[in-house]
């Protein structure tokens, strides 16, 4: 009797161990190599490949086999992911996100160049999990617009077991809010545009002088070593254009001052990160300066004069911003709806391929990350999303999201989140 039971237990154990054989491991220890067989591989930069195979190894895209033989089998050590009938699309890149952690605004001072979001990040939080279900794999987690200079944001992947695995770059970008929300502080200096512009200009000037002083020291052009100032330290990278300033700026009036102060005067790498209302009227001026526009979260303007809708991304495009993208300002629009913002831009006039490029390769380029993310090309990060069909169609959903070659969301293992 006892013997019998132990045999049963042994068989059960064997069966369980077979069932539980890891197809992939959460910590990425086991399978790191994937062969994703399509489907339609939408590379974004090099067209679409029907029925191809995408090989992933060590967190990167190894290569795309455009026309595999009919008896093609995955090489040894590669796990096959069958994506026939599906669309394989690069992960989306969000340039305006507030959902990686809480506490976005500290509103004692109007300008806060020492603030940073890096320390607030909560990996694997529920809002990030929903973002993964919408195919978003990269997010620029920036401070809020409660003050004129909210601090420095962090560029992260939306999945990863801890911060070190998620982190792409810190500082990701500086956040400046030129008007609108900062006025909520009310009462003291910076209540009006004159005050706000002075605050921004003054802080940047201070940073510029600080940067120049250190540059001179490092180039041996001066004998006087500058004093380290932690509050100004991150300005050095900003003025060396190692990272951009993403600007809460919208409407003709405000964007005009963005161009004058931040670009022309300070020579910064500028990304317009709202650009809404009638801001698109300045598109030729913005285009001339090579500034990227990530329009959102508002995607239309009701034009009282003409009595109709204007599609904002479409108007930027028409005005000369051929790389226009969209944002969600998550959670103003939920993070998982980034591609829905792009779909609405399409409904309101933008071409589909332009809309898709705007939240992939062009968004990546706006961050200086086009060599690592934003398209499906050999050597790039394996941030790959398998969709039931065209991601712009709200009827289609994500089947599987892979970040850095690891599966972060898989509807064959868990219920559909979005």
């Amino acid at each position, binding site marked *: 009797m006892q013997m019998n039971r132990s045999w049963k237990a042994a068989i059960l154990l064997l069966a369980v161990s077979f069932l539980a054989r890891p197809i992939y491991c959460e910590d990425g220890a086991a399978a790191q190599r994937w062969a994703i067989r399509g489907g339609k591989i939408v590379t974004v930069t090099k067209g679409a490949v029907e029925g191809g195979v995408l090989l992933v190894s060590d967190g990167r895209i190894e290569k795309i086999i455009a026309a595999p033989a009919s008896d093609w089998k995955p090489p040894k050590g590669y796990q096959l992911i069958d994506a026939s009938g599906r669309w394989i699309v690069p992960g989306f890149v969000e340039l305006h996100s507030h959902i990686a952690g*809480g506490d976005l605004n500290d509103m004692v001072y109007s300008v806060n160049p020492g603030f940073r979001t890096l320390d607030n990040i*909560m990996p694997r939080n*529920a*809002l990030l999990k929903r973002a993964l279900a919408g195919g978003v794999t990269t997010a620029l987690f920036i401070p809020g617009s409660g003050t004129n200079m909210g601090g420095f944001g962090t560029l992260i992947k939306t999945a990863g077991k801890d911060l070190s695995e998620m982190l792409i770059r810190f500082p990701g970008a500086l956040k400046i809010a030129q008007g609108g929300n900062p006025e909520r502080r009310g009462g003291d200096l910076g209540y009006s545009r004159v005050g706000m512009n002075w605050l921004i200009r003054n802080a940047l000037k201070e940073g510029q002088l600080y940067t120049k002083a250190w540059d001179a020291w490092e180039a041996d052009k001066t004998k006087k070593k500058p004093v380290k100032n932690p509050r100004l330290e991150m300005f050095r990278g900003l003025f060396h254009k190692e990272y951009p300033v993403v600007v809460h700026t919208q409407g003709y009036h405000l964007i005009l001052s963005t161009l004058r102060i931040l670009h022309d005067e300070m020579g910064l790498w500028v990304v317009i990160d709202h650009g809404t209302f009638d801001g698109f009227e300045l598109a030729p001026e913005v285009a001339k300066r090579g500034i990227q526009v990530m329009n959102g979260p508002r*995607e239309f303007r009701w034009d009282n004069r003409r*009595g109709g809708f204007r599609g904002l991304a479409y108007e930027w495009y028409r005005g000369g911003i051929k790389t226009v993208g969209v944002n969600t300002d998550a959670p103003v629009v939920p993070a998982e709806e980034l591609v829905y913002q792009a779909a609405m831009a399409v409904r309101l006039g933008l071409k589909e391929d332009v809309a898709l490029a705007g939240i992939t390769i062009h968004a990546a380029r706006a961050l200086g990350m086009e060599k690592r993310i934003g398209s499906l090309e050999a050597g790039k990060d394996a941030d790959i999303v398998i969709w039931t069909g065209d991601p712009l169609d709200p009827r289609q959903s994500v089947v599987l999201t892979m970040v850095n070659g690891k599966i972060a969301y898989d509807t064959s293992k868990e219920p559909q989140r979005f």
Partner: protein
Amino acid sequence: MTSRMRDHRMPALLLSLVLSAFFCASLGAEEAREKEKKSVVQAVVGATVLPVSGPMVRRGTVTWKDGKILEVAAELAAPEGARVHDAKGLYVCPGFVAVVAMGVGIETSSGNIGNGLDPWDRELTIALANGITTMQVLPAPFFGGFGQDGPLYGGSNSAVIKLTKGNLGEMLVKEPALNYFSLPTRQLELNYFLLRERFKQAKAYLAKRAEAREKKATPPKLSSSLKLYVAVLENTRPTIFSPVNNHEVKIVLSLSREYGFDAVLNEPKDAWMMAADLAAANVPVLVKSRGPDFDFNTTGPLFEKGQMAPVRRPAAFSRAGCQVSILPYRRGISLSGLAGRDLATLHVDAAFAVRGGMSNEDALKAITLNPARTLRVDDRLGSLEKGKDADLLILSGHPLDYRSFVLKAFINGKLYYDREKSRIYREIPLTGDK
């Protein structure tokens, strides 16, 4: 001085007489023209027709006359003398029906809603341009503010309207459309205890009234505070509840069973868990397919209630056999600039239900025939069938395609929206034109 004034008045009076005569004459002519138009047969030909009540008809024809549908069939030639709308390569489906809408087509929310309709309302035009031909409206705000009876927020000030732009005469379909209760979540038990007490009183009143009628005596006086509850029990229109949890859903179900009235559940959060019970009790549901919005809670659970994503909920109800109507993200038209989150994209909210597992057919039904049934106007609206109102759309693509635009919208057989002549989407190219 006075005589001179009189002298001045005479020509003015004459002029006004002449002018009013002219206007009367022109109005008469307008009416005559309208009548003439009405009796002409109109036909849409060559379209992919989605009648909702039946299968898709390719190369289909829909004909109508005097505001009523004559025929829906494939490859049918338009009758002699008919006004023909060529819809080759286009789609035709019934106009969308929106439930619990707010702030559209209404000028004022004080008094009976039917007296405050505004056929020139801008939001009405926008809703119409996006395919909504019928709407059940409530005065804003729906929640709270209607304290007619202590903590029991409720009323019946609601109407079913058609979005006949510029034509007040044909706007009102039904008033009141339904009864509604929105009970504060605090003291839920107490509120439902009070509600049950009212229903008991209403039941007693109805018994007394029946008795009086039998004896042909004067019916007993109905106090104004009891009117609503009597109306619920008479069940001449459905009663909407907005339960915040399943406990409340259960109470509503038992009340509806006990007092024999038709309940409708508005956004019953996690009631997908008891969808089979709702289907068995024939209780329709009104649900959103997305959300939540503005969620800053990074320490919270994946979803607000239960563990089912909102996008899957309409399909869950539908699979269990419930009558599902899709709610838009916002109940009105918003011009704030956030796209795809209001009544202007009701069809996209239906598309999100497809994402969560509903079929295209069921999702289209959830913004046409199902809401019409819920509002008990399905004898006239919600599908393309012989004898029903000719409320239909000609669309540039499938009605659930996010890129599709309404090209023409007919209500009661008359053209109320023409994309080419409207300014609303003049700046936006159709997909094919990009």
